[in-house]
């Protein structure tokens, strides 16, 4: 039972990292990033491949963050100057293309089979529950650092400008500041966070494969930040906990309701996420558009 809770808590912590990144992008800056999972994928494969080469984890995690951020750079430069819904489309396309690339480039990624045998983190602490708890503690520490950094950003001149961009981009230009530079930096920061989350995910699950990085993941994160309250740093954690309760609940459902296969369950889960997105946009728009209370 403890092992189960630690496992769930680890996944919550990884999702919280993703949600914090998306909250910075959409909640604070207004960037409609529909390709978050793409940056996570870049991070996960980077960590997996470098671990295979024997890199120490701190270095491979750094590389995962940097590569994910670098992938965001050209993407932002091309599409963040345009209407904000263009970026939604481009980012969604980006995440699909990342998946196509890791599926196709077998020499590097082993294609659909993926990369197995990624070593556990914190292996020096032993194995089993002790090792898992150590990973959880590390993840909690990382989340705390990220939340502190977010708070620093929110209460800074930089934070003021990105929120101003979210509220009215033209007015920012009229005051002599160019929004594109800020938006690209925010996109890269959020991507770096997704990259780190991906690296944790790869080490925790132990293997990476293209099927783990489908757009459904992106929209689960969207669900989380909407449920937690868009624009609120604490909302990322709250929303992720609710999301995970729901995802795990649906797993129990399968044990209770007979005759549901794993494949059907995947469909059911997709449908429930879809339905939730529809219901949130219809009945809880304030979750989506803020009340961006930040204090």
């Amino acid at each position, binding site marked *: 039972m403890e092992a189960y809770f630690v496992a769930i808590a680890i996944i919550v912590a990884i999702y919280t990292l993703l949600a914090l990144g998306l909250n910075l992008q959409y909640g604070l800056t207004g960037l409609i990033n529909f390709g978050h999972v793409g940056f996570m994928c870049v991070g996960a494969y980077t960590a997996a491949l470098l671990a295979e080469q024997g890199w120490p984890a701190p270095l491979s995690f750094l590389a995962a963050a940097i590569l994910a951020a670098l992938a965001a750079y050209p993407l932002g430069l091309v599409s963040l100057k345009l209407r904000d819904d263009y970026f939604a489309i481009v980012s969604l396309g980006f995440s699909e293309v990342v998946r196509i690339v890791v599926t196709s480039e077998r020499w590097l990624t082993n294609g659909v089979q993926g990369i197995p045998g990624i070593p556990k983190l914190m292996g020096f602490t032993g194995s089993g529950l002790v090792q898992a708890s150590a990973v959880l503690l590390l993840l909690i520490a990382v989340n705390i650092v990220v939340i502190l*950094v977010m708070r*620093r*950003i929110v209460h*800074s*001149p*930089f934070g*003021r*400008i990105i*929120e*101003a961009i*979210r*509220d*009215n981009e*033209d*007015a*920012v*230009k*009229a*005051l*002599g*500041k*160019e929004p594109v530079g*800020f938006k690209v*930096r925010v996109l890269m*920061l959020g991507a770096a966070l997704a990259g780190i989350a991906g690296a944790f995910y790869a080490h925790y699950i132990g293997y990476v494969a293209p099927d783990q990085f489908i757009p459904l993941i992106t929209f689960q994160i969207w669900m989380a930040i909407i449920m937690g309250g868009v*624009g609120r740093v604490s909302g990322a954690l709250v929303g992720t906990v609710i999301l995970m309760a729901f995802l795990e609940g649906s797993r129990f459902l399968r044990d209770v309701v007979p005759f549901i296969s794993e494949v059907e369950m995947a469909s059911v889960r997709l449908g429930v996420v879809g339905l939730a997105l529809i219901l949130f946009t219809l009945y809880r728009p304030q979750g989506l558009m*803020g009340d*961006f209370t*930040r204090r």
Partner: protein
Amino acid sequence: MILAIESLSKAFGGLRVVDDVSLTVPDGGLVGVIGPNGAGKSTLFSLVTGFVAADSGDVTLDGRSVATLPASGRARAGMVRTFQVPREFAHLTVRENLMAAAPEQSGERLFDLFFHPAAVRAQEEGVRRQATDIIEFLRLTAVADTPAGRLSGGQKKLLELGRALMTGARLILLDEPFAGVNPLLIEEISQRIRELNGRGIGFLIIEHDLGALTRLVATLHAMDRGCLIATGTPDAVLSNPRVREAYLGGAA
């Protein structure tokens, strides 16, 4: 001369919305542009400030052409506009709205934010003081820490003026500063503009409503259907038969 607009033109589809308009604002000048709805005033503003690309013509600020600069570059050059429908940063407080407008803040660079926090903090104090001064000058102290989205129409106009002041602009372009503002506040806003003008800040002001503006400015231009149809003192322009016809014709 701070601003010179030379033969500015813009057509949408086949319609010439701004047609060969030239006008100037002298250093520290207070100049108005009037015209009926659809005369092309707001488009003229957007052309001058770089929000819409002109088909032809030139804009010079302090004798230097700014025609190739983007909107943000023109603002940095010292020419800041407001909007007809106020564009406040709705979720930021009045104070934060003003502070966001301060130029060259080191705290806008992530590197400085985390590696030179002392310098950022020192500058932030200066910006905060400047914002407080402007808030007092504009009589917005009571709402200083209210989210800007909750202000009245007139207060939002003052807020936009305050943001423009924070940038240190030498020329401020006001797009209908009196529209939708209650009469008491109109007098208030006019008085602030006069005081700022007395300190040497130039103004170019668009108005649809004639009353308050004609009492404020020294020089008035009138536009109709994209063209400049009259220029002179407010009295001369208002008694110009073409201007009267444009306004009456527009109403008919």
